[in-house]
């Protein structure tokens, strides 16, 4: 039985006339991990087999090994399949057009089928996702997870086609995305991952792929509770400015709201194992008199239509500046983490368009924020594209020569956050 707890971190005191209430909510789940094979789980590996996957040939070979490693990590009884993606999608392993429960025999059959995969043709990620959706929908599994690997841009379909595929897949399954090499588009894959509540990362070296695929599958196997929603009630006259997951990575959920009535909306959070995640909620309320208190938000978690825990975000107006100017450390930390992701993406964009002044300024700010936030991993990545003169003030120079893989790693991992004491959740 899964237990969720939610803790709120905020400074509830607002100056007179102030309207914006910010809070960080830490949600932790325990007892969510399945002891045995998760009944009703399904897993699909989508492997890019476009012609470029054999340039160099190590890419496709590594992808096949990685897919085999993922298949080996699928627990007995979990329904699974493999899709070969080119400008078409093909179920390489889904006997009789359906996912099959994992056994030693089916795992071996699937690995043999993967081994046969030939690289040819183009890339149309939307069609791959739609086939995965069809296969998932033929199962009664509640926990549905896919791994998508690509090495190139989505050239064989339009942005609209991809968007309509994403809309059709949202809520049907979650998908972790990986890009191998440097010919894929970070923003494009980030869009796919965030729409399907998954992670995105770069695999710089084909040889690293197998360990990563195994780890992703193991994480997926550790999920025990599907389709958890974050429900937010706000009072009359209030506006939700944003709802973001801020740890382990930034995922903006604001536009994903499903309104239940004028004051209540549900935000999807996907499947949970035993884990902690942090959310930053920002609500604009109507200002009140000194001493007035209102509830700015009531957050709860909803599993199978049951509300299982709740947390209160409060607002108290005061004329005491001592109280209203206090900075809540959690809110400040995650405000910095969100800005960090933003300035990295904007800085790299400016660098690509040749605007060195903006790039230097934005990436300098990124160094400063990463130093303050304790983002060790991000600092190392920044170090590969910058000469850092003074991290505290963000004084930096752009390196003349930057490896493309370093720039893409920085971009891809910009949304990865650390928690307040510098640890990963």
């Amino acid at each position, binding site marked *: 039985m899964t237990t969720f707890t939610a803790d709120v971190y905020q400074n509830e005191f607002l100056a007179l006339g102030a309207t914006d209430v910010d809070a960080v909510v830490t949600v932790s789940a325990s007892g969510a991990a399945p002891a045995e094979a998760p009944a009703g789980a399904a897993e699909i590996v989508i492997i890019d087999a476009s012609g470029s996957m*054999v340039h160099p040939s190590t890419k496709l070979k590594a992808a096949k090994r990685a897919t085999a490693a993922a298949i080996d990590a699928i627990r007995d009884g979990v329904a699974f399949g493999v899709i070969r993606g080119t400008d078409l999608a093909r179920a390489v392993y889904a006997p009789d057009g359906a996912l099959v429960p994992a056994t030693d025999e089916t795992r071996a059959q699937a690995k043999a089928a993967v081994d046969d995969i030939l690289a040819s043709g183009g890339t149309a990620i939307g069609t791959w996702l739609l086939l995965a959706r069809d296969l998932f929908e033929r199962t009664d599994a509640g926990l549905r997870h896919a791994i998508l690997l690509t090495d190139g841009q989505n050239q064989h379909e339009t942005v609209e086609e991809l968007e309509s595929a994403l809309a059709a897949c949202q809520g049907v399954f979650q998908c972790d995305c990986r890009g191998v090499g440097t010919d894929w588009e970070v923003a494009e894959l980030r869009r796919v991952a965030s729409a399907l509540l998954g992670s995105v990362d770069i695999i710089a070296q084909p040889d690293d792929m197998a360990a990563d695929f195994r780890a992703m599958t193991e994480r997926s196997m550790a999920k025990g509770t599907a389709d958890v929603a974050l429900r937010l009630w706000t009072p009359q006259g209030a506006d939700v400015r944003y709802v973001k997951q801020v740890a382990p990575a930034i995922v903006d959920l604001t536009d994903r709201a499903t309104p239940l009535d004028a004051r209540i909306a549900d935000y999807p959070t996907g499947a949970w194992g035993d884990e902690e995640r942090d959310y930053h909620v920002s609500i604009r309320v109507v200002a009140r008199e000194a001493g007035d208190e209102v509830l700015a938000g009531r957050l709860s978690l909803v599993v199978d239509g049951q509300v299982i825990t709740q947390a209160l975000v409060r*607002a108290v107006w005061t004329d005491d500046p001592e109280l209203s100017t206090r900075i809540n450390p959690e809110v400040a930390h995650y405000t910095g983490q969100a800005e960090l992701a933003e300035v990295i993406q904007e800085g790299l964009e400016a660098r690509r368009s040749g605007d060195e002044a903006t790039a230097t300024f934005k990436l300098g700010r990124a160094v400063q924020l990463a130093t303050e936030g304790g983002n060790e991993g991000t600092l190392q990545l920044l170090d590969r594209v910058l000469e850092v003169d003074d991290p505290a003030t963000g004084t930096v120079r752009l390196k003349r020569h930057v490896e493309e893989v370093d720039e893409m790693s920085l971009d891809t991992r910009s949304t990865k956050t650390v928690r307040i004491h510098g640890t990963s959740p």
Partner: protein
Amino acid sequence: MTATCPAGHVSTTTDYCDQCGARIGSAEPAHVPPDTSATSPSPVSAPCPRCGVPRTGRDRYCESCGLDFTATASASAWAVTVGPDREYFTRTAAEGLDFPYDESARTIALDGARVRIGRRRPPGEDGPEIELGDPAVSRLHATLVNAADGSWAVVDEGSSNGTTINAQADPIAPHVEVPLSEGDRVHVGAWTTITLALRSRAA
């Protein structure tokens, strides 16, 4: 249980007003995901194996080309030519493979109810009837199926890279019989084309 907030709202929550949020002290709709089920394709009836014109009733001879259906039902009426196909190889644009110029086509008589097409097995292991060295052919790639009227159809067995017919761009759906006529070309793997031929009636 309800409470009344300082502003006079009746609230179902008793800690704070469920309307204006004022301090004082839930019903949840069910959320059911939509269910869509898959449909399976319907079978296709076999046309004349030689010219493709639909067969009417239980006619012995084809209305169009005069083929004697009873004659074709006998064993060895049909054969396939199997070999590397340069044009198909160029079309698939299989990366990282070289075309096997030294491999020539062979003719295999079709016998029995099912003729399997698949990857060549190591010596000593039982393989499919049509064994191929093509690296992009799956272990069991496709099966040629002899229909009751003596004509042949092909079924893709869920192969990794698919089966196409007559240079079409889209592969056929797996596990669905696709009727074949004389001269139809079945493409598998990176370069292999299998052409269906009607042998001389004298054979």
